[in-house]
């Protein structure tokens, strides 16, 4: 597989790189861009980004595997991330996570068979005042790819999942 940025992504790439005194400093935002473009960050993407920025591929790999936001394997359309850290722990986060596991029929980091959802238990989302919180990434939404859903309950989560399903079937 040989990967390359689209023209639009290449323009964004140029803009990102222009903000930094050296190319390597742009690695994190460029990997975000690569993930947006390619859906996840496979080794070919690491190589491609490394070549663009003059960073040895193995060093890109270290970065891509160090940070949790880079998906090294394909994820579902919606990456549902449930916080269970202390504030959410005290307000029902673990229960919501358990509920979603049952509801979606997946384990932690699992993806539903239809490829719509990937479920993951995550660390504190800095939403403790409105715990419990869920972060949902939408692969198809380039405008607003990450949305927080706060003050969640099991009932609200059910509604959220239904909503996302509807969205998925409307614009697959």
């Amino acid at each position, binding site marked *: 597989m040989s990967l390359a940025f689209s023209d639009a992504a290449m323009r964004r790439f140029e803009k990102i790189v222009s903000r930094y005194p050296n190319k390597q400093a742009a690695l994190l935002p460029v990997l975000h861009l690569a993930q947006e473009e390619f859906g996840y960050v496979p080794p070919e993407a690491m190589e491609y980004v490394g070549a663009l920025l003059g960073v040895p591929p193995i060093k890109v790999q270290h970065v891509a595997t160090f940070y949790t*936001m880079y998906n090294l394997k394909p994820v579902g359309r919606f990456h549902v991330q449930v916080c269970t850290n*202390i504030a959410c722990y005290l*307000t029902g986060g673990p229960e919501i996570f358990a509920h979603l596991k049952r509801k979606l029929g997946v384990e932690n980091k699992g993806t539903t068979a239809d490829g719509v959802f990937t479920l993951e238990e995550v660390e504190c989302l800095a939403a403790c005042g409105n*715990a419990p919180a869920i972060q949902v990434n939408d692969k198809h939404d380039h405008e*607003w790819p*990450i949305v927080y859903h706060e003050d969640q309950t099991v009932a609200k989560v059910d509604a959220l999942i239904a909503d996302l399903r509807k969205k998925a079937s409307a614009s697959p």
Partner: protein
Amino acid sequence: MKNLDVKILTKHLDDPELHTLAAYERHGGYGALRKALKGGMTPEKIHEEVKASNLRGRGGAGFPTGIKWGFLPKQTEKPVYLVINADEGEPGTFKDRLIMERNPHSLIEGCILSCFALKANHCFIYIRGELFKAIKRIEQAIEEARAKGYVGPNVLGTGFRCEIVAHPGAGAYICGEEMALIESLEGKPGQPRNKPPFPAHVGLFGCPTIVNNVETIAYVPWIVENGGQAYSDLGSDRNGGLKIWGVSGSVKRPGLWELPMGIPMRYLIEECAGGMKDGKVMKGVIPGGSSCPPMLAREIDVALDIESIKKAGSMLGTGCVTVFEEGICTVRLAQRIAHFYEHESCGQCTPCREGTGWLYRNVKRLEHGDALEGGLGLLESICNRILGNTICALGDAAAMPIQGFIQRFGDEWAAHLGAGRCPIQG
């Protein structure tokens, strides 16, 4: 008690458009910038005021900001960088997100003024990658400020150059550590560097660098406008000004309040957050993020300033208090905390990489009533192996809460030994 009605960063939060330049300016925003740059304030003068303000770092360590700024070399041929630590990730903490999402221009104005004071022309705001809305709002604010001539090659026509870049993180708690943050900004894994050299001398791209928290810098415009002494007077002795305090967990009204340094924790929990919800009884609190040792319910009359809370055996941390109730097993809570630090250890140094995992595994066994022989002593000894022996403070942050839980809830923890199951929550 100080006047609790004075507000700075949250004064105009009722304006839903506050995040726009127009609204911010309508409420007097960028007045400090005009005053400083057009009114002939020198960089040294601003530094003086910040020193006088007794403003202390709002990221958790509480280091006096004016003194930190003074660590920059007096003469340098290299560029100086200002880096804003907006990698808010300490569990229980959610205050910087409020500033960035709702009042981003306060940070931008603070960045410009601080750059001016530090003779820096470049500022990077390192924002936690998950905080997408905050990143968007900050980027918009930078663009608006640039369009207005507040940011760019010639700020307000004075010839002062100030470039601000919002840089997204990618999911690593350790990047809240200043050296890890600098490494991450350079496009590397967030692995803290050995200190010394300190960032003020060898920081970003090998250049002199000051790293400050979002909230810290957001207060700078008010200090410039009203004077350091006025800010200092808002707070308590050696703890200048206001701070955004948070309460989360099992309280009626979790949230954020801007109040003077030194207010009692009880006031924050009971008056502001409305006390315990659903008739629950408070068992204890984690004062300022999960790395702070917990305190018992009876200890919450402590004043929220750095020295008082230290004397009480914990840390002020980020000033965001997490409240837990009777019925919560502190071993299970500690297990969740230990899991976090194992997950977030960068893996560089042996005591932290191996120690955090070992702590988590053994606390987990303890929670299941199946602790290793050696019991709590063994846990404490691992804490001692980690504490003070690692490159950065993450190891300490993992060990201190465990020590604190054992110290304050020792009976409960001892009851787990050999119990075969959790005696509290089953």
